[in-house]
């Protein structure tokens, strides 16, 4: 019995430990990084239609990370397309990070209708 209680304990600890938290510490010493703008081609779309969202930024080794409270992205990098299957107001976020871990986030709001 002890062995199995130990087994359960280890299994629980390992699985909970996997619930990790990520964090980044920006290096603000670099002045070259700048996230200029985030723009969407359409602020209102019909559901299931695609719209294009573009991020403009400067710096070295830029990475673009896209998130949204809902919807589907197509593509990656500085320009993506986005669609959603129901009518509502949605926020699309873009985080740009350079090779020195400088980062900035902007968002746009898109409303979809039937």
């Amino acid at each position: 019995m002890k062995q199995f209680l130990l087994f359960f304990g280890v299994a629980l600890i390992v699985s909970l430990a996997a619930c990790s938290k990520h964090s980044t510490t920006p290096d603000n010493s670099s002045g070259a990084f700048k996230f200029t703008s985030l723009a969407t081609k359409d602020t209102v779309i019909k559901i299931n239609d695609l719209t294009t969202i573009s991020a403009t930024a400067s710096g070295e080794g830029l990475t673009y990370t896209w998130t949204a409270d809902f919807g589907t992205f197509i593509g990656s990098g500085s320009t993506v397309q986005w669609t959603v299957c129901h009518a509502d107001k949605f926020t699309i976020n873009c985080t740009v990070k350079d090779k020195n871990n400088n980062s900035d986030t902007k968002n746009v709001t898109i409303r979809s209708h039937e």
Partner: protein
Amino acid sequence: MSPSGPMNKFSGALFLIFFCLLLPDIADSQCCSTGSPSGASEYMGVLGKNYFRLATFYRHSFSDTYYESDSYADNNPLKSANYNFGGLTLGYGITRRLTVEIDFGYFMNKTQLYLNTKIPKQTGFGFSNSGVTLKYGLFVKPAKQIELTAGAGFRYPFTRDPQMVDNVQLNRDIQPSTNAFGINGMLFFSIGFASVTMRVFSINRYDYNFFDKTDLSYPTLYDYKYGNILLNSVFVSKKIVKYLFAIVQFRNEYKTNDNKRLKETGEVSNQVNTGYDIFYVSPQLSYSIVGKWNVSVVFDQPLYKNYKGHQLTPAYSYAISLTRDFNLGHKAPKVEPARVDSN
């Protein structure tokens, strides 16, 4: 309950299979998703002391139909959606009344095919939420084949960040995890009728999901919360021939709307096209292999569906399970795992 013996062991496992396989599709049924199967641990009674239970299952679900309220709906974004899911549950009887379980699940795929050919196939995969459950036998009368068990537990995600591909977040509908914690409570009742080799079970369960914290790595404006689920089901099992059992489950699932919370103000709003009320009938066959391993197949058929808004609805779902109980004690437990056969 009946005397111990080989028959008891596999029949106890058969009992488990009922619940492994007939689990509801819990969690994130939304406008473009058909939901996620929960783990395989919730719907059992207590194990005997020193009993160890291993249960695995595989489930496939396919959807190609939309509903709005209780009717078919047009203007649909998806051609179809499907998922393949594997689950594992480990259970152990700490005392004759207290059982602990841990369950894990993994989506091999969670896929959406769009009607719009400009949108490529979307696929997510990975670990679903896991759970830990404690169950206590409130009323266990083996001789009368009656059991009343209460359980409580929590569910946790393996990661609190959404799944990304090329730094792009996958659609919430195909995320393998809710990325949020949850708690649940359940009540289980079982009664056997030895003279007609039948058994009747009931399960009442409530799952509460907390808001996620998806800005741990990436700043977002909102937290998201999957709706809470109330599940009520009744099972009837009947021995057909030796080692072979037929079971039918009648199950109702009610899910509240998902919520979105604006971080800045704390304002909470309902998410449209989330929430449902579904009534299933699920026939099942279970067979014991050499009295040790138990294999079971089940088919989930929705009979009545009522969705809030416009949502993808499951067309069908089936599952196969393999289960075994191990008595790790030096002697037979006083309280055997519940039986499906009533001989």
